[in-house]
Structure formats: structure tokens, C-alpha cells
């Protein structure tokens, strides 16, 4: 229903005058099942953001095909960027309301603000928020469209460990409340193991799929650091190829 089929033959950034063009993605095939939580792991600069932009429909300048959802109904996409990208002239609540243009749902916003503990800040302008709070607002904004597909581009990068962990837990809570397909880009393997059903490892220039691994840890054990670490060691041991990617 909300599966994604990615078949990118090639994606190139054109050269500008003196510089030659740069091949970012070559022969990437990926299938992501409906309501699956998949983490894309790869070194920074390998083209993960480019791939997300292609899936989100922001970038159509590539060879190949990407199917999101069914032909009959376009999937609603929630996109969380590396930076929060909030409008500074709108309050927290107005920022969230902005994306609900066609399906206003004040209750949903209230719920999300409650869960993210931002109720008290709903009338504050983003410049007064900390980065962690801004990231939570961006997360709420993505959930406020009731997405069928959530695309996240290193949304918790540069957060301190406790904050990142708190926001991760909130993300899982929201995902379990209302299941939908999630594609989560990160270069932090521990974070990926803690969140995903499935890990997809990507190599850089040009980008291709290196390994595709199911995470077998039950959801209730995901908060246990030692379980995550054990899985990580085992993973690196079994797949030496991913060592260079993380």
C-alpha cells in the first residue's frame, strides 16, 4: 500500500564549467515494504540526501524510476530535514498548522505537542527555541500531515546524547501509535540498530547498496545499550565490508 520501490539507474550532478560532472548514484535497487522502518546507513557525502530528495519528488533529474505508494492514491509524505527548517516568522503552532493546509486537524496537533512536551511553547517563535526543541517541532510538523511515508534525513544529528535518545523514543512511540513506512537516514550505526526493522548499508561515490540486514532484536530490548552494542559487534564481525562505511 505504502511501499516504496526504488530503481535509480543513474543520478548525476552536472559539471559547472571547469569541473566535470559527478556520478552520485548508480544502479540502486531497493524495496521498502509498507509500514517498515528502514535505516539507510552510509558515510556522509555518499548521496543519501540526494536519494531522499528523489524519493520525496523534490529532484526529478535522474535516470530510473521511483514508485511511492499506489497509482490510485498518492502517499502523503512527511519529510524531516537535517536542519529543522522552521519559518522564523511563524510561531511553533503556526509552523505546524502551515502544512495542514488541506486537512486541518487541531486535535492531532494538540496530541503531538503533548507527546513532545511542547505545549507550553506553542506560541513561541522558533528563534527562541533550543536546537533539540526545534527538531521536535520539525518532527511534529512531519507527523501533523498524517504521513503514509516518513522520510528523515539525519534528523537528530548534533543533538547531545540524552536529548537524541529522548527524541528517538518519542519517534518510536509515535510510529507505534500510528504505523507507517519510515525511511531514516543516519551515519550512526547504534542509532540505526535501536530504531530500524532493517538496515541498508550504502557505499559512497557512486552510491550503491552494500548490505541489507534485518535487525532481529525485539522492540522491548532496544533500550538496552549492551544488547545494541553486542548486535553491532556481531554485525561488523559478520560483514567486514560495512566497517569502512561507519
Amino acid at each position, binding site marked *: 500500500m505504502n511501499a516504496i520501490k526504488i530503481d535509480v539507474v543513474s543520478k548525476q550532478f552536472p559539471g559547472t564549467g571547469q569541473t566535470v560532472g559527478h556520478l552520485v548514484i548508480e544502479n540502486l535497487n531497493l524495496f521498502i515494504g509498507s509500514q517498515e522502518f528502514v535505516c539507510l546507513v552510509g558515510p556522509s557525502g555518499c548521496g543519501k540526501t540526494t536519494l531522499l*530528495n528523489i524519493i*520525496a*519528488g*523534490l529532484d526529478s533529474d535522474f535516470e530510473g524510476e521511483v514508485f511511492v505508494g499506489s497509482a490510485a492514491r498518492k502517499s502523503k*509524505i512527511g*519529510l524531516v*530535514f537535517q*536542519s529543522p*527548517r522552521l*519559518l*522564523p*516568522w*511563524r*510561531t511553533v503552532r503556526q509552523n505546524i498548522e*502551515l*502544512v495542514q*493546509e488541506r486537512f486541518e486537524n487541531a486535535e492531532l496537533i494538540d496530541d503531538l505537542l503533548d507527546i513532545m512536551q511542547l505545549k507550553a511553547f506553542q506560541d513561541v*517563535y522558533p*528563534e*527562541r527555541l533550543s536546537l533539540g526543541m526545534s527538531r521536535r517541532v520539525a518532527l511534529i510538523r512531519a507527523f501533523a*500531515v498524517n504521513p503514509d511515508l516518513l522520510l528523515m534525513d539525519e534528523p537528530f544529528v548534533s543533538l547531545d546524547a540524552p536529548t537524541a535518545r529522548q527524541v528517538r523514543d518519542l519517534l518510536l512511540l509515535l510510529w507505534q501509535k500510528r504505523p507507517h513506512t519510515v525511511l531514516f537516514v543516519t551515519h550512526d550505526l547504534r542509532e540505526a540498530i535501536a530504531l530500524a526493522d532493517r538496515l541498508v548499508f550504502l557505499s559512497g561515490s557512486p552510491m550503491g547498496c552494500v548490505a541489507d540486514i534485518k535487525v532481529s532484536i525485539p522492540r522491548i530490548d532496544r533500550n538496552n545499550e549492551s544488547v545494541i552494542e553486542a548486535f553491532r559487534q556481531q554485525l561488523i564481525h559478520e560483514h567486514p565490508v560495512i566497517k569502512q562505511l561507519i
Partner: protein
Amino acid sequence: MLTLLLVWQGLAVNINSTILPGPLLVGEVFWKACITGQLTYHLGVTLLRLIVSFSISMLLGCAIGIVLGRNEKLDAFFDNWLMIFLNVPALVIIILCYVWFGLVESAAILAVVVNKVPSVIVTIREGARALDQDLMEMTRSYRLSKRRVLTEVIWPQLHPYVMGATRSGLALIWKIILVVELLGRSNGMGYQLHLFFQMFDVASILAYTIAFVGVIQLIELLILKPLDHHAMRWRR
């Protein structure tokens, strides 16, 4: 302000001539002109022309400026045109408008608009080029409607540029309107000033100037400042 008045008074007393009447005399003339309705009538006429031509210029200039700022091909094509219109002397445009369309009101308004629009376009185009691409990408990913993007995302980013165009625009339009009135209208401040010039009535010229400056101050204080204040509410 008070020093200015004192210096003026001092000079006027020393020179003691009709080319520089003192502030008291000017005040008296000002008062008389107000009572007879002369000044208010002509100032009103000029203000009306100002509002009409200013609104048209800003609307046209903003629309074209946004389009050119967002579209490189169109921009490259019209860039030379813009430079030409930006640099044709105001007087030439005014004379041509009167010659081609006659000494009518619409020709006067048109002359002011043609003079003003290019500079609005240039300012707004600069703003439209500097729009935050990250935010534009965000609006596209959430599939916001064009209208929403324009009013909620583009317009607030253009605000400083619009205010800049407004302030410089008001100053420019005032000056051009007076010339337009002087050359081809039989009412308004420009026409009156021309009349006083012929009669060497410096006191009246100064009285009208004071009225003029007062109105501009009022516009700044009552309209532009509050607008600025409202637009800056989110800044730390």
C-alpha cells in the same frame, strides 16, 4: 528643530528681503492657505495621485520582480530592458507620455508609474533571488499551494526589500509627481509651486514645502513604522 527655526529667523531678519521670509510670515501664509482651502485642495490632489501611482507601481514592480527573481531565463531576457528604463531620465518619460497621450490624468499617472516601476523591480528581484532555498524545498515537500507559499513563505522574506522599495519609492514619486503636475496639470502641488515661482512668492513656496514634509512624516510615523514593527515581532 528649534535651532533650525532660530537660525532661519536670524537669517531672515539679517537679510530682510522677500527671497527669505521669516518663519512667522511663512506660518501666517500657511494658516491662510489652510483656511481658504487652497493648500488642502492641492495637497489632496497630489496625495491622491501619489496613492494611485504608488499602488500601481508597487503591485506591478513586486509581481514582475518576483517573477524575474525566480526565473533566470526571463531575467536574462528582460535585464537589458530594465536597465534602459531604469536610466531614461524622468523628464523624458514625462514629456513623451504627455506628447503621446495628451495632457490628461492617465498620462500623468502613467508617467510616474513608468518612472518608478523599474527601481521597484530591481529591489524586489534582489530579494526574490535571495530566498531561502531550504525553506522553498520544505514547502515543496509538503506540497503547499502556490498561494500559501507566496503569502506565508516568500512575502515575509521579501518584507525588508518591500519596505526599502516603499521608502525610496515614496521619496522618488513625490518628486516626480511635482514635475508631472508642473508640466501638464492645472492643479496639485507642482502646479501651485510653479505659479508661486512665477509670482516670486517665496513665502507660499516655503509654506507648501512645510505641509509636504509634514505629510511625509505622518506617513512614516503612522503607516511605515507600525508595519516595520509588526514584521519584526518574531526577531529576538
